[in-house]
């Protein structure tokens, strides 16, 4: 039995089981969500997914590559069902976990493509730094409508941004590090027109967030702005020419909130792309 046939069989059985509990189930999907999660990211991927399913009912395909393992594919299929307020129905999302062993990790598109839901967009969340130019990335870029990364998970910034920029003409890209700094960009925008003459940006936060913030300011102002950074797990302080900017209200959004926001976007983001190119 092929992997795809096996997945479809398991999904069919799960739907029957869900229907047997007497609560009518509703399969609703607004997209196919593909997540590429190397072993060190597997738990984080599952945690984020748990906070996401309710907001973006979708078929989720979790790909766990293990290139050093024995060649083969392990399949786990599950349904996540959530009661709907006010009605005796549940809405169910399908989660397909595929452990890609050995050479199978190099050909993910051939496994993903037959499992995509027709006519709906495909979002790919790539955990960690993508292996630039490698077949698994190249293939999934070809399958996805939107590639979602978090460049704060990368060790190779800013050099890696040059590689990322090469993908812009092939796939729309979202960066969670960019989304995370949105309210800070709003704060900086509110300083217009005074900020027009800004010379120095000081950021306390992750490297990627700081680089993108500086890249944004440079690209929008069309000139150099120097960046100094103090390392921190979260963006906690931004200053322009030594003057601290008021922090946005409220706490930082959760990983699920951030990914959720990116999954609502379609099309390219020229402001982000321009920022990456000068980050």
């Amino acid at each position: 039995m092929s992997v795809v046939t096996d997945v479809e069989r398991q999904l069919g059985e799960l739907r029957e089981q869900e229907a047997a509990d007497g609560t009518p189930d509703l399969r609703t999907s607004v997209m196919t969500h593909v997540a590429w999660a190397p072993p060190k990211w597997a738990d984080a991927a599952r945690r984020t997914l748990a906070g996401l399913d309710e907001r973006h009912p979708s078929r989720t395909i979790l790909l766990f590559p293990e290139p050093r393992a024995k060649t083969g594919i392990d399949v786990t299929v599950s349904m996540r069902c959530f009661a709907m307020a006010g009605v005796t129905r549940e809405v169910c999302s399908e989660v397909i976990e595929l452990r890609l062993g050995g050479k199978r990790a190099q050909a993910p598109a051939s496994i993903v493509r037959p499992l995509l839901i027709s006519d709906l967009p495909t979002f790919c969340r790539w955990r960690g730094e993508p292996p630039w130019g490698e077949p698994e990335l190249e293939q999934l870029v070809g399958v996805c409508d939107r590639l979602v990364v978090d460049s704060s998970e990368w060790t190779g910034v800013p050099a890696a941004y040059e590689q990322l920029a090469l993908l812009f003409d092939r796939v729309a890209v979202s960066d969670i590090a960019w989304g995370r700094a949105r309210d800070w960009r709003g704060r900086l925008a509110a300083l217009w027109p005074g900020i027009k003459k800004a010379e120095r940006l000081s950021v306390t936060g992750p490297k990627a967030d700081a680089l993108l913030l500086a890249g944004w300011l440079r690209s929008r102002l069309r000139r150099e702005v120097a960046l100094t950074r103090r390392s921190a797990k979260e963006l906690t302080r931004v200053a322009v020419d030594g003057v601290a900017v008021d922090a946005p209200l409220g706490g930082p959004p959760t990983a699920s909130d951030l990914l959720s926001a990116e999954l609502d976007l379609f099309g390219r983001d020229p402001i982000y792309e321009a920022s990456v190119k000068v980050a």
Partner: protein
Amino acid sequence: MSSAENPLLEGLRLRRTPEPCALVIFGASGDLTSRKLFPALYSLAFRRLLPESFGIVGVARTKQTTKEWTAAMKKAVQDHGRDPFKQDVWSALADSMTYVATDFADDHGEDEVLEVLRSFDADRGTSGNRVYYLAVPPAAFETIVNELGERRGDDGWTRLIVEKPFGHDAASADELNEILKQWFREDEVFRIDHYLGKETVQNMLALRFANGIFEPIWNRQFIDHVQITVAESIGVEGRAGFYESAGAVRDIFQNHLLQLIALTAMEPPIDFTADSVRNEKVKVLRSLHTPGPKSVVRGQYGRGFVEGEEVPGYRDEPDVAAESTTETFVAAKLYVDNWRWADTPFYVRAGKRLARRETTIAIQFQRAPHPPFAEIAGDGLRPNVLLIHVQPDEGVSLAIGAKVPGQGMSIRTVHMDFLYGGAFRTGLPEAYERLILDAMLGDATLFTRADEVDEQWELVDSIVAAWRRDRPNFPNYEAGTWGPRSADELIHRDGRSWRRH
């Protein structure tokens, strides 16, 4: 400031947040404020959608301190809010609240409100921007508008939110509009019909104008008729004083029901700006043919059972006259006399103490012209119906004929359901959240314009005028049913029937 003036704003996708402003609620101790307005304000605060510089002034006759009012509103949010209660969110909101106990006609009290607003401008940076919310009975309307007008300053902008009912007939609505016009421009007046704030009502526009498959068949050639139902299972619930003088025709038909017709029948607007949308709606209201006496029926509920519980008849409700002739049910056959809808009936009904709470718009399409399976279809071959559930179970269903698995060719009607709660599980915002926010932003798209109100009342006046000539034989339907027999006869005469429930 636009992104052309400030390049840092381009592509920022910031949440729509209003400019600094103060919100003044007249009727701050009333039911609407505690059940709807404050839960909505809390939800806006919860999502950080309120302006950073913001203040709330509650104005009402009830003698109480700011502290007491704030405590009452906190309880209201805990009881009626849709979001989890967070003390830090509430504390920020509560810090912005001040209560002024005064009679609305009392100059001293109104001056005190003005003083509070000036202190907000100075201390909170509300910049002279004001949103006044008139959550008061119609009798208080003129006094408040005049008091506000007389004290109107030159700084900042002013927006006035007016609750329904907006008048009780065309003449009184005209009078109210004249009073408003003395002090406020039309673009400063926001007449609330909270149905327009409901997501599913707005989704009607998305359904029609964002989907290429519907608009080509959204006309008399493909649609047999339209049914709109606004049904409540509750009775007058302590509103007898208002309801006795209003009835179903003024309480529901004049506003909610006619707005639903307008959204269903309107032509595509050129854009989604307030005037474009409202221009198209008003054209529909102008096209509505005045129904003849046989095309309108009214009813009043008698004793009956609702959800297993025995309930009294309308005339037995507290504060209702023993011989009351107020209608608690109205049904009508209406025609939109224009090129798109000529000869296509819109059957509408609204009432209290009906079998269940339901607001739906059902678009019934023409039957298939020559189904080859007619003889073996049995009950199956029914026309397609596109059903828009406004409340509850918000969503859209399409009834289609499908083959029953197995031998032969049996056809059954099945429903394809799109449930809002299934596809977008973020929780639907309450109508008042959207409407209060829009008013703060100055977006009047989902509010009713003066000429819409005029058209609505003209139709209602013509219906009510005919009713004055005879005395109805009330009660004429049992509580817990779908209304009087005459409502069934209204539609049966045309060889049609109300949707099955």
